[in-house]
């Protein structure tokens, strides 16, 4: 090594790349399956001091509260936060609160007992849950001798087994490799899914992308044995040089017409399932959401650049994709779809209420749900949701409103966020 230096330049990062090559484009592979990734506040792995624009918004209760008066008249007493009704409709399902559990795919972090613990608790809470892409092609469906806990069937049963009557529902994601495995057809014709189908609590989610890596497909790290098993279905790249390989899904090619026709196909082929569509935070997210809604999607999910638990090249969370706040601004300006679901570093009531005020019907829990279930596989997510529900009730009540759907853009303010109108 020479004694050359470059003060002020990211010298050490350059030197690491010179030593390790392509592996340096990714987080350390040893962290795979143990660390939940995602953008850091400020939008980068190198925080630049800029605040996340959604965090920077303030929730602004008014002084005069006609909706509180209406609630007072209804109740015949002064209402308080306990009178906020959180139950809502999410993509055709009834949910106990404006919250759903985001897609967790085939990544190791969501596999095994943790995936099952999460499914059980989401079911018990009556929250809609998305089962992520690539679970079937990687872990199997669960009817042909695969380990049922890792397979899709295990999660489906764990969820449905705890689900109260009339509540919740499962959205099963499908992307390109899942289409090869016919995931939707498998679920639609499976006797285990029939109670969900017959009670209107099954949806299929068409995945166009994800917040952590817009424009890329799913990525995981595999050992050599697993890589050999999946090599005919996925792109494999030996970037790490230690036997472990990068496994990439194809993101799928979309145009407005391809999206429109795929949704039409879903409605035609699976008439008794709801249709959900998940978008990455692309610059044309509002246009894509409009196409999806017009084609008949029951819900459109938008993952902000802060979203995602999975493995992603470092440059993506740091520099790629629109922040959730900007997605909400663009969607609002264009006229948000009737049932907009959003996710991206949601873990407490503030970001949730701000998202609802900016046009979302519900917010998704990804990393928060996994961490909560990991903290206590029996009741971690249940207790976490109790806290979140209380916080949302307090905030909604403070705004003089008593249902999440009553929130609107006048309930938030920011000096630094153009596009959010300043009212009053």
């Amino acid at each position, binding site marked *: 090594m020479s004694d050359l230096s470059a003060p002020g330049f990211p010298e050490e990062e350059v030197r690491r790349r010179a030593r390790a090559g392509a592996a340096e484009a990714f987080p350390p592979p040893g962290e795979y399956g143990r660390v939940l990734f995602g953008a850091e506040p400020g939008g980068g792995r190198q925080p630049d001091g800029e605040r996340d624009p959604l965090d920077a918004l303030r929730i602004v209760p008014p002084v005069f509260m006609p909706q509180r008066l209406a609630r007072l008249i209804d109740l015949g007493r002064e209402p308080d936060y306990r009178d906020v009704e959180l139950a809502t409709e999410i993509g055709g399902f009834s949910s106990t609160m404006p919250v759903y559990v985001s897609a967790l795919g085939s990544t190791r972090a969501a596999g095994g007992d943790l995936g099952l613990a999460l499914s059980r608790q989401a079911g018990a809470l009556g929250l809609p849950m998305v089962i992520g892409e690539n679970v079937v092609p990687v872990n199997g469906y669960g009817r042909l001798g695969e380990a049922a806990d890792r397979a899709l069937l295990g999660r489906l049963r764990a969820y449905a087994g705890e689900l109260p009557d009339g509540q919740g529902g499962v959205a099963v994601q499908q992307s390109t490799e899942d289409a090869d495995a016919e995931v939707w057809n498998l679920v639609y014709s499976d006797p285990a899914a029939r109670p969900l189908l017959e009670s209107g609590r099954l949806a299929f989610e068409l995945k166009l992308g994800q917040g952590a890596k817009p424009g890329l497909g799913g990525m995981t790290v595999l050992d050599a044995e697993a890589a050999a098993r999946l090599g005919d279905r996925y792109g494999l790249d030996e970037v790490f040089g230690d036997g472990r390989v990068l496994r990439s899904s194809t993101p799928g090619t979309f145009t407005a017409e391809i999206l429109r026709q795929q949704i*039409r*196909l879903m409605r035609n082929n699976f*008439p008794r399932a709801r249709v959900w569509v998940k978008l990455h935070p692309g610059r044309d997210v509002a246009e894509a959401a409009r196409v999806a809604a017009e084609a008949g999607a029951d819900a459109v999910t938008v993952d902000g650049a802060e979203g995602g638990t999975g493995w992603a090249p470092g440059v993506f969370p740091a520099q790629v994709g629109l922040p959730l706040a900007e997605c909400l601004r663009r969607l609002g300006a264009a006229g948000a779809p009737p049932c907009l679901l959003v996710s991206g570093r949601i873990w407490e009531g503030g970001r949730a209420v701000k998202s609802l005020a900016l046009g979302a019907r519900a917010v998704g829990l990804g990393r928060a749900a996994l961490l909560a279930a990991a903290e206590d596989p029996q009741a971690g997510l249940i207790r976490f949701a109790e806290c979140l529900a209380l916080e949302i009730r307090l905030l909604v009540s403070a705004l003089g409103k008593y249902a999440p759907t009553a929130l609107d853009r006048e309930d938030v303010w920011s000096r630094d966020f153009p596009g959010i109108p300043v009212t009053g």
Partner: protein
Amino acid sequence: MTTDGPTAFAPIPDPGRHLTAPTTRSALRIQHQLLSAAREFLREQGFTELLPPIIGPVTDPGSRGSKQVDVDFYGHRYKLMTSAILYKQASLLAFDKIFCIAPNVRLEPLETAGTNRHLAEFHQLDVEVAGATRDDAVRLVEELVVHMVDSALRELPKEFAGLGRDTGAFTELLKGSFGRMRHAEAVAELQGLGHPQSPDAELDWAGEALLSAQRDRPFFVTDYPKGSRGFYDREDPEQPGLLRNFDLIAAEGYGELCSGSQRTNDYAEIVTRIRETGENPQKYRWYLDLVREGVPGSAGFGIGVERLTRYVAGLDAVWQAAAFPKVAGVVSP
């Protein structure tokens, strides 16, 4: 008239009782005669009969929620054929006019168990003609079906009598010239009858039966919207969004007998349309390589053998027209 509601499902008897039942024997004799007549007709028209493959790396993508069956082919995931369509197009590299009687397996969704019109394993009389248009295919189906039914009626009067089938029901059919209506007209008629038919979708089973019950001869429904059918149906350049395809629907409430279309043989259009069905074109490599090198433009169709038999024999359910019926979700030999 038959009904097509899920409540009409009757249990299938065990194989011994089913095979020895007079109804089964008559139905299978009629089926045999229908196929013999079809072979005779098509050979006279210059068609070559090919034996279709039953497994391959890819098959017709599932539709209406039916699932494909995977088999392990020396470590590769192969599919049981759900339709001979891709192989029919490829076969035109050998002959200009081909037909085959192809077995197909589709794991239909469980709700089809009670429709009386679905089998998980069935046979299709598949026909493909190079250089033909949709209208050529429609005329060919018409002549073929008239010939098949006429032959069965002439050769097997006792079987029809034994089944109690009123052969007067075919008076209009035997005159040829089946009815024709466009998909949009069918949708309008159904909506007018209070049936909530989507204008974007294939006619649903109840809708088909409703239209079928009101007619005394088979009829064609043409011009289905893009997105309701497979990627291989040609889009009409003069009517974007509509496909040059058709279904043949029986009279008396028996529903669909046959689907067909003019095919697209344009490589870029096929790849794009495959994406519109959510699939990875890589799966279709061998087929796409052939198309890229050039396969003839063509039109063709597939007649459901058990469905046609059911209609001609006047049976309550399509499984009665199969020696070893497989109904969705019913474990049977």
